[in-house]
């Protein structure tokens, strides 16, 4: 049982109420079973052999969005999301994964994306000369959510690359990083998928990998090294960092913002995990005429729209809409006209809820509009 490695978290959380008021899911659903304490109680019973993974317990463990707010709040160093991911792997190993989870896994393995869409359509929405080059400085890894659901983010970035005269290429055989498989409880399958992708990336011999997907960014920078996968000497940047650099180097002409006010939504991987809060703010700060406002819940404590791995809104569409509505309300409280995101999966989740006063745009899109 992989959860044995998380016994300290489980034993602490089972009787602790100290982060329930920040737990994304617990707050939205009001259910005790959705809080870290609830999951601690359940996992303790499993750990001690006092309960089995019945369908209800399995369901609860696939409801957590892994946003990590509990972990950020915790002063005891506990890590509920890691315990939940370990539990999922145990569930899978016992052949008890729910139907929907198995379907997403099959689609990932078969098509390289969680939606089961044809690999040939991955870059269908992208146009331009020389998108796939033998040699280039920068490798742009779009990721599944951008490629299939938010191609405008990729289009915006291509426009920026061109404006900055950047030497870039796409990866012809791009597929998922394997992150969703890992989070769904399929570590072996994730490893296989990741190994394959790492090899392709290494072969490009690019100097910099740029991705707009925080889940992919985390996969490349934390999961791959942990799995012993080598990407070569490539530097991995999130687009927010890359754009920040282009602006600092003066490679983009003075920019006049199309929008007048915006607020930025931080996320799990880019923000809470990697502490990359300032680069996207600096990028937006460089746009003349844009008033950047902060939400009350911001930076490491930002509300979550369910980002990790982009699987939450596939698994729990109804809860995902509730999370999104909460984020949109919080953003609307700032009075800003634009909600800026740095995650394509988040943008998709937010787009599923009506919020008349706000336009949701990726930081790259906001910048591209100002070119």
């Amino acid at each position, binding site marked *: 049982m992989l959860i044995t490695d998380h016994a300290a978290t489980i034993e*602490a*959380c*089972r*009787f*602790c*109420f*100290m*982060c*329930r*008021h*920040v737990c994304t899911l617990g*707050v939205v659903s*009001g*259910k*005790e*079973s959705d*809080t870290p*304490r*609830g999951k601690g*109680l*359940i996992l*303790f*019973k499993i750990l*001690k052999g*006092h*309960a089995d993974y*019945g369908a*209800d*317990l399995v*369901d*609860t463990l696939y409801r957590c969005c892994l946003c990590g707010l509990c972990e950020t709040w*915790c*002063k*005891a*160093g*506990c890590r509920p999301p890691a315990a939940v991911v370990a539990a999922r792997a145990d569930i899978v190993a016992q052949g008890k994964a729910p139907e929907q989870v198995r379907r997403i896994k099959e689609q990932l393995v078969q098509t390289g994306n969680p939606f089961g869409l044809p690999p040939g359509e991955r870059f269908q929405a992208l146009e331009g000369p020389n998108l796939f080059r033998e040699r280039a400085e920068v490798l742009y890894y779009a990721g599944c959510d951008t490629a299939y659901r938010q191609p405008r983010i990729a289009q915006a970035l291509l426009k920026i690359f061109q404006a900055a005269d950047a030497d870039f290429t796409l990866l012809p055989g791009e597929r998922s990083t394997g992150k969703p498989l890992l989070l769904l409880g399929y570590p072996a399958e994730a490893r296989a998928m990741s190994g394959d992708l790492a090899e392709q990336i290494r072969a490009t011999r690019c100097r910099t990998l740029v991705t707009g997907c925080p889940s992919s960014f985390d996969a490349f920078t934390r999961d791959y090294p942990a799995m012993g996968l080598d990407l070569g000497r490539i530097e991995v940047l999130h687009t927010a960092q890359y754009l920040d650099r282009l602006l600092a180097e003066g490679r983009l002409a003075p920019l006049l913002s199309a929008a007048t006010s915006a607020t930025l939504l931080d996320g799990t991987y880019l923000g809470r995990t990697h502490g990359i809060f300032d680069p996207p703010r600096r990028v937006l700060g460089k746009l003349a005429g844009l008033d950047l406002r902060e939400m*009350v819940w911001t930076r490491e404590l930002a509300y979550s729209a369910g980002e990790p791995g982009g699987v939450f809104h596939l698994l729990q569409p*109804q809860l995902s809409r509730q999370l999104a509505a909460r984020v949109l309300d919080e953003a609307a409280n700032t009075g800003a006209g634009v909600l800026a995101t740095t995650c394509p999966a988040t943008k998709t989740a937010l787009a599923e809820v009506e919020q008349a006063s706000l336009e949701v745009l990726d930081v790259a899109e906001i910048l591209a509009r100002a070119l």
Partner: protein
Amino acid sequence: MPVPTESYLNEFLYGELVDVVGPENVSASQSDKIAYSCDYYWIPELWLDRGRPLPEPDLVVHPRSAEEVSRVCRIAANHKAPLTTWGGGSGSQGGALPIHGGILLDTKKLNRILEIDKTSLTVTAETGIIMQHLEWALEREGLATMHEPASIGCATLGGFLAHRGTGVLSTKYGKIEDMIMSLEAVLPDATIINTLAVPRHASGPDLNQLFLGSEGTFGVITKATLKVHPLPEVRRFHAFVFPDLHAGLEAGRQIMVRRLRPSVIRLYDEAETRRLIRRVLGIDKEGAYLVFGFDGDEDLVDLEMQKALAICRALPHEDLGSRLGEDWWDHRYDFFFPNHMFHLPQAFGTLDTVATFAKIENVYRAMKRVIEEQFPMARYIGHFSHWYEWGCMLYARFIIDQAPDDAHEAVQLYNRIWDACLRAAIAEGGLLNEHHGIGLKLGRLMRELYGPAFGLLEHIKKAIDPGNIMNPGKMGFETFR
């Protein structure tokens, strides 16, 4: 959602509840049964730890309005099903445990803030709101209830009302029962009632007080209006060490009878002082550590602070300055995370009680004597942290580092300690509890505390809840049949 139960009668109950709140707000899931079987009471924690089965709810329901609560009450009454209200489940007395199964009513979807009246400085909210969420919303308006319990993030407004809870600033701003203006409650017969709009009047008895401390046995409190305050301009602290507890108590008493209005006074006994000072300052110090604080407009705070300092400096003392107090304020919630809190295999209990200044030291010593003489496996610590014009609250604790392995033996020992300590406290003029409530834990001692007056409480309970469906088995009332 399937309803796994031996009895098909629960299918009827389930269907009727779904009819009221929709399928997404009724659960018979195994996950919920586990999560609602254990609150912050040590006995269910022990029971769970030892792999013993806990009493579970048959169904969990999440109503979203007083009307829905009312319809749930009607269903429970028709079926004679136990109906246990659960707010945050952070109560330490087993109050929210569904010990007789039946319907568990979780209030957390009753979480709207209905009005912030900036003219009168009041807030009206539904009672399932988590206290911290209410406080954060008020803070955006420059306001605060000043109810600052350590469980501010764990517990609901309704839970505090039901237990007469308290926060660290209670010495100035009062306990929750001092903050209440009016409330709405749903009675077991499904009637929705409101108490009078303001709490000070000569228009009959105060019905608020009937529901405060009723722990879900009289009905479900669904809405409340509380006083709020502007955020203070400054908040200042100062700390001293006195040679012993007696001297520290005298300092606190003098501050209070001089009618100064500190928001905080915390006085630690010698055992806690030793632990605390070592942890915070890294040095060993003997005596009784006292910290107090004032908040409000700067000039008023300075004046009151001067007067309080003069009182303390007139007694034998060591002045520790203000840093320790400020440190405590900044980290006041840290002590409740698992790395600092007592936990299994320890057995522990908070014997919070209250008495007048004339009696409180004797109450402290009587309980200490009980622990030292009768329960050598336990240690006893205490601090005094809510002060009134006439007395103060003692927050005493017993701790056993290794609870007996056998669950039966552990529970019996645990309950014997409670009985012995609280009987000693009552004999010296203390009460069963000051802010955690009675619940399942202390119900058996209610008759001893109240004497014949408990009969009156029983009459009230029978009049309001003749079917005995509301949180049966708690507060010492007749258990469920």
